[in-house]
């Protein structure tokens, strides 16, 4: 019946407003609705609980109960809190290395290869960099071909070694190739992997140690549900990554996973993917994301 959080909040706040004298009990009732709406937006169960507790304290602290329009103030508190939780202003990419090495990581199908291309294209056109793409997925059928097609589309060279089954060696060779040939950014595409796959997690940890990237990015599908926290935490434990990429935001998902991930690893969300084409990349704006989650 209620399609989004703002509808639900309106409804909940309507309840709140309807009471002549508003009590702490009414606020609790309202926050239950807020929590439910967050869960519908795929915010993690525990984090939704924590969040509503914080909002409750703020609401009581700001005397939401005595203002003339408690509803509006509540919406503002919820939105501000969400925005703050997701980070401050948009954060860029660390390009201090010579070359700057960027390592992609994430689950299967999250959008790593596509985003590698988008980022290369962005750095080439917007930051006048000379990027090299390195194909370290030796498992997925035609993964190397896919990266080559992407490279052709954006006119960026792709380093690959088809006979080689060792992603660590390919990554190192790619970085060496970049140094020898005047590339100033190296983007390493890796295979998708599950956090519970120990061998594969060790592999990416070894790549990470071998090439010591300036930026390690965790690429996550914005449609992800409750599991987002587990995955983000497991990848962060192994890689201590620098930032998060949220893909497929051209869909209609609320994207509550963004809050969950940010709360659990406290790393900035740096870019978003908004389509399959190479131009479909944007920097992340916390307040826009808060609006989206709230359906505003």
């Amino acid at each position, binding site marked *: 019946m209620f399609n989004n959080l703002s509808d639900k909040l309106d409804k909940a706040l309507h309840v709140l407003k309807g009471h002549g004298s508003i009590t702490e009990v009414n606020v609790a009732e309202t926050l239950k609705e807020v929590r439910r709406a967050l869960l519908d937006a795929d915010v*993690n169960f525990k984090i939704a609980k924590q969040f509503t507790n914080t909002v409750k304290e703020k609401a009581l602290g700001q005397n939401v109960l005595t203002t003339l329009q408690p509803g509006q103030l509540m919406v503002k508190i919820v939105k501000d809190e969400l925005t703050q939780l997701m980070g401050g202003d948009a954060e860029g990419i660390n390009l201090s290395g010579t070359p700057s090495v960027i390592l992609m990581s994430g689950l299967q*199908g999250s959008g790593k290869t596509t985003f590698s291309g988008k980022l290369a294209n962005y750095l080439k056109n917007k930051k006048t960099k000379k990027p090299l793409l390195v194909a370290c997925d030796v498992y997925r*059928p035609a993964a190397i071909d896919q990266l080559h097609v992407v490279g052709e589309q954006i006119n960026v060279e792709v380093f690959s070694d088809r006979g080689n089954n060792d992603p660590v060696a390919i990554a190192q060779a790619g970085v060496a190739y970049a140094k020898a040939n005047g590339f100033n950014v190296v983007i390493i595409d890796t295979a998708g992997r599950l956090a519970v796959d120990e061998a594969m997690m060790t592999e990416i940890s070894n790549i990470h140690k071998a090439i010591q990237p300036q930026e390690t990015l965790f690429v996550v599908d914005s449609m992800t549900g*409750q599991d987002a926290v587990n995955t983000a935490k497991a990848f962060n434990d192994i890689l201590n990554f620098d930032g998060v990429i949220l893909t497929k935001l051209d869909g209609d998902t609320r994207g509550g996973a963004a809050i969950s991930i940010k709360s659990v690893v406290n790393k900035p969300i740096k870019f978003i993917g908004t389509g399959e084409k190479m131009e479909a990349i944007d920097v992340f704006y916390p307040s826009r994301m808060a609006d989206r989650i709230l359906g505003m």
Partner: protein
Amino acid sequence: AGKSKVDDEVLDNLEEVLVTSDVGVNTTLKVIERIEERVAKDKYLGTDELNQILREEIAGLLSETNSGEDTEFTIPEGKKPYVMMVVGVNGVGKTTTIGKLASQFKKQGLNVVLGAADTFRAAAIDQLQVWADRVDVPIVKQSMGSDPASVAFDTLKSAVASDADVVIIDTAGRLHNKVNLMNELTKVKRVMQKVVDDAPHDVLLVLDGSTGQNAFEQAKQFTAATEVTSLAVTKLDGTAKGGVVIGISDQFQIPVKYIGVGEGIDDLQVFNKYEFVDSFFK
């Protein structure tokens, strides 16, 4: 001793398990209400009994459409070729699932033909070709950028000519809110019917097991565009539980047929609702 009260605490825990398995608030409340009704008379019962009731109630939501007894990969008799079309949003595991299914059908001695109707995504055709080579089945393809409906048409023609048993058509991943791309899918389906008038016999919607509540919208829009007849849930070898399919199966009355449990050729299983429910509590 051994008896525990089905009190608020028990129900709160249950809520947490279900919600964190992506079952969703609506379906979770539905399950909890049904349990509350059943325990209203006998308020005290053991954890084992509670688990049994829970299993039954959740399986009940799936039961209209899932017998829960199939263990074999079967295709219905009397359709030759039996035409499957595989659809879903980007990156969920369509192409991989097709490779695994082709392998299962081939093992049964069936002649399988694959159709590479994803002509859009980088190296999508090469990827399906690798799977066709692995399984050793023919593939029908055109060049990148060609009309997917035309590829599907060619595939069916070829399958009919070669007297094939099963045709599986791969399609490009597309987000369900993109009207043009969804219309394209409707067209692919329509064009197939010029060759086999009741094709496709099965429209398999692939859902990524780690997807949250957005899967509902996916099921809704793909059903509107192609009349989805079965579901596959992939990537259940990870920590995600895929609970959202319970509500989807219940609401749209579509059976869950397969689950993906890895990237290998044999990592596909016939869906078993009891094992599925049990996995939430592991």
